[in-house]
């Protein structure tokens, strides 16, 4: 594992250096891409100037709200669907298609329903994240060994305590997968919504920089998002490993 981590680091560094070289030698034109070092430099300046702090915090706030509601909502919906197998089978084909539907088309609708604030953006993030959570909640509940439920009965546990003490921890690995996907999709949804329709936030700022030929800012912000997502991923990766290592998985 250690070795793989090393190699991975080298691969990433090598890739960045390659890009740097290609940009510097003009193989990739300046109008197409700027060297990674300049991206980092510009990002540093942007962060220092604080000009984008508002956008950054707004986006992070939106993602956080979308993510939390996706996890909670997905868990609740998933649990309900799991207990209604007939409804579940009816809904299955729709769940699978879900991501192919361009929600952005409904932005005006969302504005009407929720007013002109962060809610429509958050809702799109939520809509992206919630299905991953629903699917994984159902998977997790599916995989609870029946013998554990029997054990609960032998110990005289009622339905609520069975859910809390047995079902939840038993389904934890799949729930965790759901949570990881939910955060990824909340990110994707919020940033895409901002990119396409919004008037503020990181996604908007990238689109704005793109429109104004401000490649330096655009790439700096892209770098920011990539770094952020990678860090969040790494955090979840480590956390998951910790939990799963105990269970020996």
């Amino acid at each position, binding site marked *: 594992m250690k*070795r793989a981590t090393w190699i991975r680091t080298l691969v990433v560094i090598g890739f960045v250096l390659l890009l740097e070289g290609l940009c510097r030698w003009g193989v990739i034109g300046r109008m197409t891409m700027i060297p990674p070092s300049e991206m980092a430099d510009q990002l540093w300046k942007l962060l220092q100037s604080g000009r984008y702090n508002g956008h950054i915090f707004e986006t992070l706030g939106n993602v956080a709200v979308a993510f939390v509601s996706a996890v909670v909502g997905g868990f609740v919906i998933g649990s309900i669907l799991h207990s209604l197998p007939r409804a579940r089978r*009816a809904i299955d084909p729709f769940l699978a*298609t879900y991501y192919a539907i*361009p929600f952005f088309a*409904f932005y005006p609708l969302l504005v009407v*329903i929720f007013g002109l604030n962060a809610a429509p953006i958050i809702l799109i993030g939520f809509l992206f994240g919630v299905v991953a959570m629903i699917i994984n909640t159902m998977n997790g509940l599916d995989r609870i060994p029946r013998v554990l439920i029997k054990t609960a009965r032998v110990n005289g546990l009622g339905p609520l305590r069975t859910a809390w003490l047995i079902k939840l921890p038993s389904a934890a690995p799949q729930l965790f997968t759901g949570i990881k996907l939910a955060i990824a999709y909340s990110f994707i949804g919020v940033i895409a919504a901002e990119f396409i329709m919004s008037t503020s936030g990181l996604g908007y700022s990238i689109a704005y920089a793109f429109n104004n030929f401000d490649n330096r800012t655009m790439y700096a912000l892209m770098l920011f998002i990539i770094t952020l997502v990678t860090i969040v991923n790494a955090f979840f990766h480590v956390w998951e490993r910790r939990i799963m290592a105990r269970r020996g998985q």
Partner: protein
Amino acid sequence: MRQFFDSLVFAAVLVAIWQGLHWFAGDIAIASPGVTAERAMVLLGSPSFWGHFRETFSALGYALAIAVLGGMTIGLVLGLHRLSGEVAEPILVSLYSLPKITLYPLILLIFGLGMSAKVAFGAIHGIIPVAIFTMGAVKTIAPVYFKTARVLQLSRRQLVATVVIPAAIPELVSGLRVGFSLTLLGVLIGEMFASQRGLGFLVMNAIGTLDVPTMMAVVLLLALVAVMISAGLLYLDRRLHHRVA
């Protein structure tokens, strides 16, 4: 059969909610199901719609071909070679959760406009889930299959073609389901930005001219096609998994 009926009931519930939203929000925000259906029929009768339709789905076809072939190849290689798999997996997962729309300007700058950008954008959405699922599938193939292959004196090519791929197929179809949806989304987003043809363009245009019925009708038709393809894949998925279970 009963399941089909249940799905219809669910669809009816969706339509009822839709109608409710229409009453609540008014027709600039959302067209009624009736008006949308009417508009959809008109679109279905117009040759230009089919032009857009072909455009989108041929882009989807290319993108999907790239995503599936590329993703499977990457997944197979990484799955069969443990070290590269370990090296690559976290990178793939990071790329998977990256909001790829932020890469859109880059795609545009590299591929220019039109078909190739759309295909590229669709493919980068689809290729990673396919690769991840394939890798997962190959990695979890029971070691005893590889031993069996050695005892039966299979060559490396025979091993991949007759053992690894068939063993991984159920998972591949699951990956394909996710990959399909995301590829379509990618193609549509691509069309929404810079294009003069395709269903995504139609939607964006309709949003621009505030032609709500057309917008809703196109989304509806898209959703219908996607549901049908996806239901087909789901059916295949269930059958394959059933055979293994």
